[in-house]
């Protein structure tokens, strides 16, 4: 059975691109347009990994990761931050929040797939 990955990003085009890259590798992808939408879609879905943007409306990526880590069911779900922001301070913020990796856009599909296969839950 295909493993499920959630992509959280306010950009339709980027969600589409990530979806193509992950689907072609055989993953099942769930999309969410911001942190609030993502939290709403967590219930009832077994998600093995989350790829999350940082700057988003309604709820930004760092806040979402903090909220995610408060949920017992998703406390250990690995999160990859996918953002245009490469500032060290932001990276530290993401790490403290509980993210496992930080990928700066634009990403190479092979690079992303390598990170996913390394971090995804069995």
């Amino acid at each position, binding site marked *: 059975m295909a493993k499920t990955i959630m992509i959280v990003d306010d950009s339709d085009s980027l969600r589409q691109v990530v*979806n193509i890259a992950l689907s072609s590798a055989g993953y099942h992808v769930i999309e969410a347009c911001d942190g609030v939408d993502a939290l709403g879609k967590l219930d009832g879905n077994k998600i093995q990994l989350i790829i999350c943007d940082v700057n988003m409306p309604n709820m930004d990526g760092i806040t979402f990761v903090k909220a995610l880590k408060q949920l017992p069911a998703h406390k250990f779900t690995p999160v990859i931050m996918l953002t245009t*922001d490469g500032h060290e301070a932001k990276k530290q913020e993401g790490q403290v929040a509980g993210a496992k990796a930080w990928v700066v856009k634009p990403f190479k599909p092979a690079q992303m797939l390598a990170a996913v296969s390394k971090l995804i839950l069995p």
Partner: protein
Amino acid sequence: MRKENYTLYWWIAVALSLVLTFVLLTTGDFNLVNAVAGTFLMGISAVSGWWASHRHFTRMNAVAARHRVNSMGLEQVHHQAIPILSGQIESARVQTEDAIVALATRFSGIANKLESAVEASQNAAGELTGGAQGSVLTMLDQSRVELMTVTDTLKSVQQSRDAMLTDILGLMKYTSEMRDMAADVAAIALQIKLLALNAAVEAARAGVSAKGFTVVADEVRKLSALSNDAGKKMADKVGAINAAISTVSGAAKRSAEQDAQSVLQCEAAIQNVLSRFHDSTSRLSDSADILRRESGGIRDEVSDVLVSLQFQDRVSQILSHVRVSLEDLRMCVAQQLHQDQGAPEDIQKWLDKMAQSYSTEEQRRVHSEVQRNSGSSSDVVYFGEAAWQKQS
């Protein structure tokens, strides 16, 4: 500034001239010349004071008029230009986003179809090149063996018929012996006939007592005639059998030659067909190999395109930040319109806020380059002050 404020300059000039006149009259002699000089000094002071204040008043009016015009311009910028620019940016951002999403969707479809085509080609290549048990090349080899079995069977049939023909030709030897036997029968019949004649002659010489023997001799002669007829008939039949065997063997020989020729032609045809099939499958296999190699390059291209398509996300973020910053600028302008002071600090706050909102390195680089080229941020505000100084 009101006009009354400018008359102060005139009063100052007049007061100064009064002081000077007083000093002149008190320190010098109070005579007609000094009185005239003092009066003249007061007059000159009054006129020059009036002229200076009038000139200053006129210039300040012009500056104020320009300020009013600028304020009206800022009002237009606040109410129309910035919302229009903001709307245009959002429109461009949304259009680009929609176009990229549509492009990515179509590209996804193309990539999937391409992947299916490559996969089908690879399967076909595997079937052709013998990767699978039922590959075309394996089937071709099996067909070659089976078809060779057919030609071997045909050859075997031909050999059996040749053996049968040899047997038939061997029968001709027996028929020849039978013909000799028939000739022997005829010769024996002739001898018996002669013996019967001699017996009849001897019986006739013996007289009546040998009359019965005469009958026997006559019967023997008849039997001899019958034996002779049977021998002739046998010879005829053997001749007919010989002729039939010759005819059959001739036909069988011709048929065998034709069959041998046909078997050779079959072998050649089978070899040609198999050879053509082999060439075709080899070419198909080569094409599949090329496609398989190219598919790796196509996958790399797909990966590059996916990277390139992400430009929209960066562009969208930059445009969103520009739009938000324009809105902040509009608020800043609105504050300026309502307050005559504190604009430079507001602009600096706006610039700082804009700089903090950046998420991409390009934004930070562009911001820092523009600021470097423009001098310090206070210079931006200084243009306004400089313009005022230049006007005055």
